[in-house]
């Protein structure tokens, strides 16, 4: 059973969209000695993530958000399987497979989903072609890092 699953996703060649994987990589280094913690950095959410989800007690998804103040961190409690069907019909692209849809997959296919699920987003400023984060997004990393670490307390 995974105590905490972290999934940071986004395209690292599109500026601030690389925030999710970058924070996941940072957390991976920081939490190497923690047992029962799993960190995944990926380009986008895909169906097979349902399997590690089904083994986790708690999950934090990390993504950049388009719109909103650059560097602003939002922390959302995601509705789980019971409400997911409404949201999955709104999730119309597979490459935008949403966290609630993944939770529904986990519940439906494996009979289990995390009791607590959160989505951490940071407002992005620059999604152009490039490998670096903008200043406000880079500045938000420590706060976001701490927010996720607090889930282990």
């Amino acid at each position, binding site marked *: 059973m995974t105590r905490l699953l972290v999934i940071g996703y986004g395209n690292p060649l599109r500026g601030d969209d690389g925030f999710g994987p970058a924070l996941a990589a940072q957390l991976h280094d920081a939490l190497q000695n923690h047992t029962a913690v799993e960190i995944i950095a990926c380009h986008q959410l*895909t169906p097979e993530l*349902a399997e590690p989800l089904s083994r986790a007690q708690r999950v934090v998804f990390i993504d950049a958000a388009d719109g909103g103040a650059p560097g602003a961190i939002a922390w959302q409690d995601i509705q789980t399987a019971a409400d997911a069907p409404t949201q999955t019909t709104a999730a119309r692209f*597979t490459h935008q497979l949403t966290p609630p849809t993944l939770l529904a997959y986990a519940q439906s296919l494996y009979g289990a989903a995390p009791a607590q699920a959160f989505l951490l987003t940071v407002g992005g400023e620059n999604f152009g072609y490039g490998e670096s984060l903008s200043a406000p997004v880079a500045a938000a990393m420590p706060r976001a890092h701490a927010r996720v670490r607090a889930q282990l307390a």
Partner: protein
Amino acid sequence: MGKTILIDPVTRIEGHSKITIQLDERGAVADARFHVTQMRGFEKLVQGRPFHEMPSLMARICGICPVSHLMASAKACDALLAVQIPDAADKLRRVMNLAQIVQSHALSFFYLSAPDLLLGMDADPARRNIVGLLQEKPELARDGIRLRQFGQQTIELLGGRRIHPGWVVPGGVNEPLDAAKRDEILQALPETLALAERTLQWFKPLVENYREEIRAFANFPSLFVGLVGAQDNLSFYDGALRVMDARGKIIADKIQAEDYAQYIGEAVEPDSYLKSAYYKPFGYPQGIYRVGPLARLNIVSTCETPRANREWAEFRELQRGPVLSSFHYHYARLVEILYALERMELLLADPAILSRHVRAYAAPNNYEGVGMSEAPRGTLIHHYKIDANGLMEWANLIIATGHNNLAMNQGVLQTAQHFVHGERLTDGALNRVEAVIRAYDPCLSCSTHAFGQMPLQVQLVNVKGELLDEKMRG
């Protein structure tokens, strides 16, 4: 004044797009277009980068087929070095490439298309998606995940990372394969093969339910293009390009990577940033062709591996000559999954794959290099130019979805003409227009290097082409 119906956005494919259908005064479909509205930019991003960074950089274009870009890029770099990679490296690259074919086809079939194929194109839209699939036939969803996991695990065992492996490098691969990892992959194969076969056995009878779609889904004569192996066989990693016409006649053959530009041209449509590829000798747009699973199974003479070969022979019985309906991309994908798994087994069973000699070393010997391979969706071309210091000056990428753009548009028009009628705007009809796009399994993130959410432009155009209304969404 004609009326325009928008299906916006097209669901369940990677990336974004818009379809506009233009009706004339009588409510008949006058025109239908598939628009892609994102910009290209990855080709500019690479300028000034050391060429040996290209494979890992290019793998980051797309989260669905990073390995495809890795392969084509590495092959372009091999050409810059002017090296022949060691035999073990060739085998290892093939295994990784095949694993991704399995993975990508699994996503397309089980997650993008299965809701339509299982639940039917007239099913309630609230259920005709993955949720409905989970309720109706969860074992299909589970099998899809199992195939994706097998592909992922193989790629990780070889490359050491989940996505964007840094293991494939110019000149070969970074590290040889050890026996323990090889055995781990081999052990998972029998179960995965059985899964692929039972999916085929389940799907084939279903095809009978789709006679109308088969007739109308981009069912037209076109050229077919793809790589063919030395034994005229199905081949993904390597081979020479073949062009076949709709009657099965080979009109160009054994085209090497460096000569692609003599045969493949690219045009940019005014309403789309997706480049349209065409067969140069026939001109634009007459030189329309298709790539991908349907094209590959049409242009080869054998799949070589036993089970895939039997299924391929049965597939070819669908039509005398090349199979023309784009509906059959789905069937072709399943045959290719079977082939990929059988071929992986053969490659891994060969002791030569464990050789420690996996890399050829050289400095650049050419200023220009082209790499060509078959991605899940079709032929992928990476063309690079470097300066005397080995820094990238220029890159051109021709993506599978770009090859298919003209054919996808043809498919949208044909399907719209057949299924969409002014008086009856059924959801099922509109979904079929979307579904014909899905049959091609386009990866728009790749082909236009897009990401995430972007505003969608909706345009209402009258029969004279005058803009009546314009809206932004998202």
